[in-house]
């Protein structure tokens, strides 16, 4: 083999790209691209799509800064000229916004934490422990994903009522302590982890639970973060279930409370939107903070490379 051939085989003389440009692209085959644009032509499709997605959000923000008269004007006013920043303190003080905020945080945090814990435990069982009827149990569990919430609303309500939890925050927490989607998500992720790591830990003296908490969960941060974000979103935005189970406005969540601005006799759209923006903020922050967990897992780094 000639020296020239050798060098080419190692990729050392790739003409235009340095080797560190290639990080994260191992295994990807990319078609060489003409350089007539500094970006992919797909951007011409994606950019308008992104703008269309953003319009409703921007409209919410704009409306929250308008006067009531401006919100009722037709055609809609997209630039109010002067911003009514006072809408925000008004929305906050005209209703028990702080209480609702706190209620929502309590419910969401409790549900997210319990889901992370219980879904992990169940998923580990399904992913790794052999037991009688596992496949059938998993099948039926997944089948419940197909049942719409409207079907189970009344039975769940009756169960919660028997537990004397109606019109308490417990009614919002207890039925949601674990959910099937979370079990499914984590089971599939746990199955992709190299089993040798768990075997090594068991030989090293760890019990099943320790293997789960010391080895499996730390390696599953991307999946756990995904589950946490999704669960946070669902719980934070849930409207139907709180509407059915909560009557006293001191136990309202934000989504339920925002309804106060929009009734048969009042329709303070600008205050409603101000409340909406305030209720969206925690989720935006969460998304920005947790974004990196979606990018890449670290699970395979301990194996041969």
């Amino acid at each position, binding site marked *: 083999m000639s020296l020239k051939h050798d060098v080419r085989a190692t990729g050392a003389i790739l003409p235009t790209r340095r080797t560190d440009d290639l990080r994260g692209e191992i295994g990807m085959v990319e078609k060489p691209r003409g350089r007539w644009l500094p970006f992919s032509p797909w951007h011409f499709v994606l950019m308008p799509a992104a703008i269309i997605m953003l319009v409703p959000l921007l409209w919410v923000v704009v409306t929250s800064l308008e006067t009531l008269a401006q919100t009722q004007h037709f055609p809609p006013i997209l630039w109010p000229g002067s911003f009514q920043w006072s809408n925000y303190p008004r929305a906050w003080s005209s209703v028990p916004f702080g209480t609702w905020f706190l209620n929502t945080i309590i419910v969401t945090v409790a549900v997210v934490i319990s889901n992370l814990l219980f879904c992990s435990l169940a998923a580990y069982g399904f992913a790794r422990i052999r037991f009688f009827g596992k496949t059938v149990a998993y099948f039926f569990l997944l089948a419940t994903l197909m049942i719409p919430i409207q079907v189970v609303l009344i039975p769940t309500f009756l169960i919660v009522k028997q537990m004397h939890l109606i019109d308490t925050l417990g009614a919002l927490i207890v039925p949601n302590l674990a959910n099937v989607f979370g079990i499914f998500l984590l089971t599939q992720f746990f199955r992709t982890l190299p089993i040798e790591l768990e075997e090594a830990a068991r*030989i090293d003296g760890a019990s099943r639970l320790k293997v789960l908490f010391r080895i499996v969960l730390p390696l599953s941060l991307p999946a756990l973060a995904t589950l946490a974000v999704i669960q946070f979103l669902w719980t934070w935005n849930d409207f139907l279930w709180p509407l059915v189970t909560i009557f006293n406005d001191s136990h309202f969540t934000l989504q339920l409370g925002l309804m106060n601005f929009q009734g048969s006799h009042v329709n303070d759209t600008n205050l409603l939107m101000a409340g909406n923006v305030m209720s969206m903020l925690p989720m935006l922050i969460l998304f920005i903070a947790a974004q990196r967990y979606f990018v890449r897992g670290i699970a395979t780094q*301990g194996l041969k*490379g």
Partner: protein
Amino acid sequence: MTDVVFDHVTKVYPGPALAVEDLSLEVGDGEFLILVGPSGCGKTTALRMVAGLEKISDGTISVGDQVINDVPPKDRDIAMVFQNYALYPHMTVEKNLGFALRQRKTPKVELDQRVHSMAELLGLEELMKRRPGQLSGGQRQRVAMGRALVREPKVFLLDEPLSNLDAKLRVQMRAELKRLHQRLEITTIYVTHDQVEAMTLGDRIAVMSAGRLQQLGAPQDVYDHPANVFVAGFIGSPPMNLLQGVVRDGHVEAGDLTFARAGLQGGEVVVGIRPEGLRPVGEADPGPGLAVKVDVVEPLGDEVLVHGSVAARDAGVQIEPEEATLLVQTSDRAAMTVRLEPTMRPSEGSTLHLHVDPKTVHLFDASTGAAI
């Protein structure tokens, strides 16, 4: 005493597939035993049963005086090095080394002291704060060994630990492993398919094939006296040459090789000749011989390997399928590998006349494969 005893151990996977069949074997206290065989022969399954990662279908395994069939892995006091190392990716080298000790609630001072002396022994001090992803193959290998050895286990299990290393590093780690064992004297079971590792590392080797133990003995004994055709063909690199032959009137005939061997009954046999058992015919060297037609010559520096063929007879011998691949033979030619002095360089296509010392020829029963 921490000897390991396999007593009629059988492992059947659902399917059913028989992975290990009636394995009986004793590993002495402090012994270094090699389990060797081709892939799928059951050697790794046997090891995993000792570790507690596979249930034992039948029979018992004892460590010391205790039967461990139903003891969970964490209570067996056994350490294992995996083929792919299985280092915990989210922990530093230091945390990896100390993991087992932390599980056993070892006091912090003792833990630190043991982790650091193990790191010193294996030359890992500089790497303590790194994670496995930042280590080279050889370093990961060392961490994996350190993690297993740091708690001074009763039994040390290794599952092809060197197979992911490059050739040079493998030779180096092989010597290091041997030194380590001489120093620590822990009962060790080592699984490999590499018969160089098998020959060099072990006090004894256990050759397995198709779930069964074929032969157990000191490496040199197994090499010199293979119990059957499988062992003869598996141990040794390059492997033993095997020819179909026949015994007639106290003489063994195989192709154009004929020699006398007393005390044999007539019938079909397999004739085995080690590549180094063939010598070029000298002036004062009459006797039985073979004419090898040279196909390929491989000069290796310290020796020359010649691959060629010899005349053979098709005796229509029936041999079990797994052993049939060992007999590379057409109707009238059989493959033959010869090891020569480095000064010799036969030309390809020529014919080499070689002397065979009848005393070094192995004979196997053609129907059972067992050594005669």
